[in-house]
């Protein structure tokens, strides 16, 4: 491996590492706020990329039908959960959030899709279709289990993952798609040509991570999420609803997932089930960070991206094995350092 190949591999690794970092951040967010190990994170990546591909082809994205269905189910679940104490205001909000919003997006998709409105509107539409699925899934699958153990929540997460993957196959078929690159051109940095797309991925990831940081440190709702993560009972005692925080966390996770899908769409061919492996690598990074530390999760994700890229060059058949085996020494080290891992 000569230096220029090494640098190309590192560039590739950083690009995918940046995506894993985004996913790892949202996994940490979802886990600390709701205690859910969010296996279906990867499905949002696939849905984002494939919805975008459908829109590029000028076809109606069938994920919009799913959004409508999830919205209706979420409306029923939300009403059942609150029926005894619901106020008019909350009912109005529930209807707006779970019925009106998806209906508007659905109609918009129906109207906009055949017109091929161009890259940016298509991206925004894809994000609008996928992002609300997060809060709806929280209402349907996880809110009723709010008091359940982490293990039960994990099993529910696996169930959601399998369901979503199934729908993915129905909607998009077994064929993979690749979207057109939205940042063409490249930049010569010494011996390496850095493609515009990887620069864009890196830039977007850094910008998004920084935005998340600002939201958490400065806004009251960010602090409320943090407070819920630190002390659930304390948060309830100041009037913060855990289920609201859960919906926000799931929404952020779905948004990050969909955006990651848009970012990788032009780099790799995405299939209906590609999300799982991508999400799993973000998950490995989150685990390395103990599912609590954001900077550690991001750093671990970049390391995993580089490791994967180097492995795919020198031992391509074992690239996944190498990446997932790397978690074992880390877990050993963690369990030696923290002899007691309390359940938060």
């Amino acid at each position, binding site marked *: 491996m000569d230096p220029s190949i090494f640098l190309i591999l590192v560039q590739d690794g950083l690009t995918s590492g940046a995506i894993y970092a985004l996913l790892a951040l949202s996994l940490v967010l979802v886990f600390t706020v709701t205690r859910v190990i969010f296996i279906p994170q990867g499905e949002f990546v696939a849905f984002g990329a494939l919805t975008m591909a459908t829109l590029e082809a000028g076809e109606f994205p069938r994920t919009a039908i799913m959004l409508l269905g999830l919205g209706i189910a979420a409306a029923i679940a939300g009403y059942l959960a609150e029926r005894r104490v619901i106020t008019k205001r909350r009912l109005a909000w529930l209807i707006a959030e779970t019925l009106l919003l998806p209906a508007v997006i659905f109609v918009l998709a129906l109207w906009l899709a055949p017109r091929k409105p161009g890259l940016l509107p298509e991206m925004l539409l894809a994000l609008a279709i996928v992002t609300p699925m997060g809060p709806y899934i929280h209402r349907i699958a996880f809110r009723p289990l709010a008091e359940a153990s982490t293990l039960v929540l994990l099993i529910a997460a696996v169930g959601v993952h399998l369901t979503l993957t199934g729908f993915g196959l129905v909607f998009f078929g077994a064929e993979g798609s690749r979207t057109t690159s939205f940042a063409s051109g490249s930049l010569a940095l010494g011996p390496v040509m850095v493609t515009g797309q990887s620069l864009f991925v890196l830039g977007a990831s850094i910008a998004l991570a920084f935005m998340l940081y600002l939201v958490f440190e400065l806004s*009251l709702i960010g602090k*409320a999420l*943090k407070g819920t993560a*630190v*002390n659930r009972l304390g948060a309830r005692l100041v*009037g913060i*609803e855990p289920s609201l925080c859960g919906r926000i966390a799931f929404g952020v996770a779905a948004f990050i997932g969909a955006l990651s899908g848009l970012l990788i769409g032009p780099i790799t061919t995405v299939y209906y089930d590609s999300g799982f492996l991508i999400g799993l690598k973000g998950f490995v990074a989150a685990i390395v960070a103990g599912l609590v530390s954001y900077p550690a999760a991001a750093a671990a994700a970049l390391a995993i991206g580089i490791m994967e890229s180097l492995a795919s060059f020198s031992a391509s058949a074992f690239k996944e094995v190498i990446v997932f085996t790397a978690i074992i020494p880390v877990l050993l080290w963690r369990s030696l350092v923290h002899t007691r891992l309390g359940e938060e």
Partner: protein
Amino acid sequence: MLELRDLAVAYGGVLAVRGVSLRVEAGSIATVIGANGAGKSTLLNAIMGILPSRGHIVFSASSLEGLPVEARVAAGLGLVPEKRELFSSMSVEDNLRLGAFLRRKEGRGAIAASLDEVFGLFPRLRERRRQLAGTLSGGERQMLAMGRALMGRPKLLMLDEPSLGLAPLIVRDIFEIIASMKRAHVAILLVEQNARAALQIADLGYVMENGTIVLEGSCEALRSDPRVVETYLGIAHA
């Protein structure tokens, strides 16, 4: 302000609290005293909605039945729990600001005014406003928990063993502040093992044993009641 009628709370199959009826009038301090394990904390947790209960809880003329904790906070109830339940990895100021979470639409001015009020009551918190809550001493943690609850402008504040684990001098400070909150028209339900301190500042007292109220009356009457003197105040100080 708050009225409990025939309240019962079960832990598994065991009734930890049964047949409890009590009242807290607006602008007054009521106290529930009793030994460790008498069911006092359970009672507060049930009023707050943390534990499910049977019976009637009426607050400000409306029933709290079925309402989750957050809705009871919104209705004007506040609880400073025995374990304080602070946001330990967040700053003192952030803890206080989250205390006013439900008042977020009132605007910066109103929140800043409340923050000043709380800092006026607890000057120590102002000194430590940038410090993480987890690094505070026991007394400061109690102050922060009370300050955080006050930031929500409760109509009724419930305090669970505010003197627990604190040095006597700090206990005296805390009780002075509790008495001063009454002047600010916050009704208070105080649960204490430290019966002497509690009976000194409260208007109405309830004695709880084995999950039921065995004695009630004005605090003056309770202070001289031989049963209270013998069991909770100690003869030497009677």
